[in-house]
């Protein structure tokens, strides 16, 4: 079989070249269809429960994605000075006119209403800051007004008066990078000495997408260049090293093209596919080429050398490719779609790279002019510096096998200790480096304000009992009425809307109804009125008081900067209606009192603001929670704290409480990912182990093959635990890479050791020979991949840096473990393994 393939390759090199070229061209043609997706929401499947709930809440309460603009004035007078206020007004007014900004929901000092006392017994609604005040008296009045309004205090102006913010709602979050640039242009054109900052999750996401796109164009080619230079250093033959480069390029193009062509969006994870595939694709080539160079002499026949090389390497290469692919395919077990796609395509890419290596490299080597390979004969790379060290390592590990084993055991123990300290945490804003303007803005604004990260605590009343009692009461009324209700009962309109419709209908009917029917219609109308009142759970003073109680618990948690709710609105309006004294800051005694206060609230310039807090039928309400940190950890802590609080002080039994909001969703996918990663790692581990047992037809060898990857994974995650680096998405995905690459080295090492031993039946000689070409190839591979990814360290995006750093570490560690631990283990188990 293998023989036949090689024969075909030797006879039809042009078919191979043509095929690879054609496939590359076809897939490359799909690359321009690329669609970038940076929405962390997509970490969850579209139909995921919490995600659907979040989007339902966004729709029900008209909640938009927000860009947050903050102005900071560090001088003693702070933001309350004529110049700063004028600048804020100008920025807000012009920002409201940007295409894609929802101007009627924009929040700024100049764009919200003030409710205040206007002389004795009189109240007034007016724009809070229609014109920028210039006199000290007017400025103080503005400051007092803001301090009196709980919805604005510490949200629009910081409590230290140093900063003011503008909340810019946008219709489409994919426009936020453009809109933030336009806002920046407005800020630049305004006469102001204040420091302006722009942040908010949508900006972070969209800007990240933009940067990611740039990085794909920079990092991956730079990595390619680095690999090229290293290969040049090792082989010093341009035509020779062109082969692995072609294999790597073709693999990346075909996989990315296929992925984009199949309609998958490029997410943060998939943007790194090229970076992951590049090293894995050259690994097999390096094995082939190292061995080729070793065996290739002046007089040797190229074809037979290649045959010998393929015969030696086919099996280990096939197995390493399959095991690496399994490592990545296992990612498909996580419930995170971008990670699934990443795993699927990297896994497929590894298999593709194997096929390309096996068919392309031999065809290429045979086709090259003989003279092109002449220089290779001068290479005695087994005598290079690197090989010298590697040989030393081999001798050391065999001689000192007990100390080596003890050493690795202690490293393992320390690593496990580190793993136990891992902090599971992520925050999309932290995907930028600390000095990125978005990180700076995030830091500064959260220092001054109650927090720029939103989460929503949603309270929903169960209305089923009210509905069924309504239908029961309506069914005994005049047939005209009961049949009308029965007919409309199953329409897709919600119950509150149906009540409205029935009310109109009843009134129209009443117009010319007589006697009994008229009485029944009157009764029906009264029933509807009464049902409407029952439905309106969040006009009830008790429930509003419960909301206030939840808010004070949120505050007591110490993790929440501030929360805003319908109760705050009701209390504020009630206070102003009752003369403005602080004692009147309370919930009215009756439901009608609440309704009448809210009717006043709606007589402002922004009546629609109410519907950000409560649905029109008053059956659900949201508490807007402002957090100073977008870390999943902090969100988790708030959620846990509130769960406990709610368990101790449960709401009225018909009310259910859930979380929504972007910060909360981030926490949800983080948790799903951690659980999913554990699952995928374990299953990959088991599958790889079974394959090893199968490959070596020995349980002992299977266990030995698993040693390097077990140690490396433990070490890497132990290191992450010790360094205090958060376990975030890129880190989680590294486990698959570690698993794939570490087992790769182990397979090559063990397979070759067994083959050599089978020939000479001498353990010491085998080890000596192992540290010639095979160990050299392994260390070469480790160095190529480790150094090849140093360009990633210069990327402005943290996930890229993380991947670059840990890739290098993984390579170094797993090569070290393979070359030190395996010989030591083989030596210790000599009598059992080498028979």
């Amino acid at each position, binding site marked *: 079989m293998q023989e036949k393939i090689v024969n075909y390759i030797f006879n039809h090199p042009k078919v191979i070249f043509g095929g690879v070229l054609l496939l590359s061209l076809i897939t490359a043609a799909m690359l321009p269809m690329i669609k970038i997706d940076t929405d962390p929401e997509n970490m969850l499947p579209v139909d995921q429960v919490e995600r659907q709930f979040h989007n339902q809440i966004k729709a029900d309460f008209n909640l938009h994605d927000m860009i947050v603009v903050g102005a900071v004035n560090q001088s003693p007078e702070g933001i309350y000075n004529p110049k700063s206020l004028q600048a804020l007004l100008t920025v807000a007014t012009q920002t409201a006119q940007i295409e894609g900004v929802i101007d009627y929901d924009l929040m700024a000092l100049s764009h919200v209403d003030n409710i205040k006392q206007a002389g004795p017994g009189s109240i007034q*609604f007016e*724009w809070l800051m229609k014109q920028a005040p210039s006199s000290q008296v007017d400025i103080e009045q503005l400051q007092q007004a803001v301090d009196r309004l709980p919805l604005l205090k510490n949200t629009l102006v910081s409590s230290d008066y140093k900063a003011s913010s503008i909340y810019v709602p946008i219709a489409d979050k994919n426009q936020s990078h453009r809109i933030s640039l336009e806002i920046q242009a407005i800020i630049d054109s305004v006469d102001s000495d204040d420091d302006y900052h722009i942040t908010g999750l949508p900006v972070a996401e969209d800007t990240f997408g933009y940067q990611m796109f740039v990085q794909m164009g920079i990092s991956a080619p730079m990595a390619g260049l680095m690999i090229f230079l290293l290969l040049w250093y090792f082989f010093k033959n341009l035509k020779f090293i062109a082969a692995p480069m072609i294999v790597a390029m073709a693999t990346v193009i075909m996989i990315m093209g296929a992925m984009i062509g199949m309609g998958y969006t490029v997410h943060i994870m998939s943007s790194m596919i090229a970076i992951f595939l590049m090293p894995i694709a050259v690994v097999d080539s390096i094995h082939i080429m190292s061995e080729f160079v070793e065996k290739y002499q002046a007089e040797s026949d190229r074809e037979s050398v290649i045959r010998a090389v393929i015969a030696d390497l086919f099996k280990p290469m096939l197995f390493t490719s399959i095991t690496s692919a399994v490592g990545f395919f296992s990612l498909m077990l996580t419930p995170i779609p971008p990670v699934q796609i990443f795993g699927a395509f990297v896994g497929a890419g590894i298999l593709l790279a194997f096929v390309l290596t096996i068919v392309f490299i031999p065809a290429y080597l045979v086709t090259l002019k003989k003279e092109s390979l002449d220089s290779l004969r001068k290479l005695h790379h087994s005598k290079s510096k690197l090989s010298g060290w590697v040989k030393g390592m081999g001798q050391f590990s065999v001689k000192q096998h007990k100390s080596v084993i003890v050493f690795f055991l202690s490293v393992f123990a320390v690593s496990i200790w580190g793993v136990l300290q891992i902090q599971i945490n992520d925050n999309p804003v932290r995907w930028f480096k600390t000095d990125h303007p978005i990180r700076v803005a995030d830091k500064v604004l959260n220092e001054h304000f109650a927090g720029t990260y939103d989460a929503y605590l949603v309270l929903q009343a169960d209305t089923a009992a009210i509905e069924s009692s309504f239908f029961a009461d309506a069914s005994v009324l005049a047939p005209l009425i009961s049949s009308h209700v029965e007919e409309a009962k199953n329409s897709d309109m919600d119950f509150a809307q149906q009540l409205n419709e029935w009310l*109109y209908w009843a009134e129209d009917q009443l117009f010319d109804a007589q006697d009994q029917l008229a009485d029944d219609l009157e009764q029906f109308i009264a029933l509807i009125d009464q049902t*409407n009142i029952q439905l309106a759970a969040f006009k009830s003073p008790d429930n509003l008081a419960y909301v206030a109680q939840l808010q004070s618990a949120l505050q007591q948690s110490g993790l929440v900067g501030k929360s805003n709710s319908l109760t705050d609105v009701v209390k504020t309006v009630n206070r102003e209606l009752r003369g403005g004294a602080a004692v009147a800051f309370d919930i009215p005694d009756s439901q009608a*009192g609440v309704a009448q206060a809210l009717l006043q609230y*709606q007589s402002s310039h922004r009546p629609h603001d109410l519907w950000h807090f409560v649905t*029109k039928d008053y059956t659900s309400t949201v508490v807007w929670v402002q957090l100073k940190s977008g870390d999943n950890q902090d969100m988790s802590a708030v959620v846990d704290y509130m769960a406990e609080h709610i368990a101790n002080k449960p709401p009225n039994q018909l009310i259910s409480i859930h979380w929504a909001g972007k910060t909360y969703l981030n926490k949800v996918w983080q948790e799903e990912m951690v659980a999913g990663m554990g699952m995928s790692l374990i299953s990959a581990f088991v599958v790889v182990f079974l394959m090893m047992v199968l490959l070596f037809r020995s349980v002992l060898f299977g266990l030995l093959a698993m040693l390097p990857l077990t140690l490396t994974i433990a070490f890497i995650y132990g290191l992450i635990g010790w360094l205090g680096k958060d376990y975030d998405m890129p880190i989680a995905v590294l486990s698959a890479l570690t698993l794939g690459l570490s087992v790769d080295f182990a397979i090559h090492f063990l397979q070759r050791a067994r083959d050599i031993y089978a020939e000479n039946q001498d353990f010491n000689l085998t080890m000596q020979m192992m540290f010639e070409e095979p160990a050299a190839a392994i260390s070469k591979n480790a160095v190529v991949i480790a150094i090849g990814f140093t360009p990633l360290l210069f990327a402005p995006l943290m996930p890229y840096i993380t991947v670059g750093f840990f890739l290098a570490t993984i390579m170094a560690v797993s090569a070290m473990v393979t070359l030190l631990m395996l010989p030591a283990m083989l030596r210790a188990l000599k009598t059992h393994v080498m028979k």
Partner: protein
Amino acid sequence: MNKILNILMLLLTVMVSQAATIDHIISQANLASFYAGDDGRSDARMIIVDNKDNKQMRQFVILRKDLTEGGDQNFLVVFSRPSDVKDTVFLVHKKVDDEDHRWLYLPALDLEKRISSSDNRTSFVGSDFFYEDVSGRNPQADLHELLKQDDAFYYIKSSPKDPNAVEFKYYTMQIDKQTHLPMVVEYFDQSEAIYRRVEVVEVVDVQGHPTVMKSKVSNLKTGGYTLMEFRRPAYDLGMEDDVFTVRSLRNPPKNWLSGQ
């Protein structure tokens, strides 16, 4: 002879229409919209619809008495629905040369309140109507310009004398030549994009007065709109002056609230 008469009639018509200056058109529109009869009452039902078709309802009776034709007038608005705001009352003394006087009564809070009315362009109880749409914008607040006319309508553009007092840059009106009612009013923002439209949907003759029975305000930004329907309108009922005093806040005049 007949011919000469016809020509004379024609000349007369032309002269009259030229005499119908812009001020006259506006003043007639104002009278037709807000001053029909010496007093009047109507049931009103407002349906507030948002861009997702969620509806809210407001029901009230509106009473009006003119003090001078085209001048000061008084309004009393008594709510009946939603039932939890039943008996909430607004009293407005509209002043042409001064700020209106407005009072409010909230029964559940047992609260009588003056409302300062420096700005009449706030929402009327959460609807897309402004207070000004209900009680009438003072024609003197704007500069009016006749853009064109055809057989049916005058087309007018009105710009505020004090641009800082309002949110629009200007508005346009289509005034029906027959009824003098502005049938469509459209408001333009600072970038001259239309963002708000007030339309008369249905007109019925009541006691000789063309009376708006249904009107609609659309907020083109939010995508929401409000429909206002009138029922049982009646004019010249001989309402007493004391219907429109602060006493009526707590004791609305029952006899005028129910339609005849």
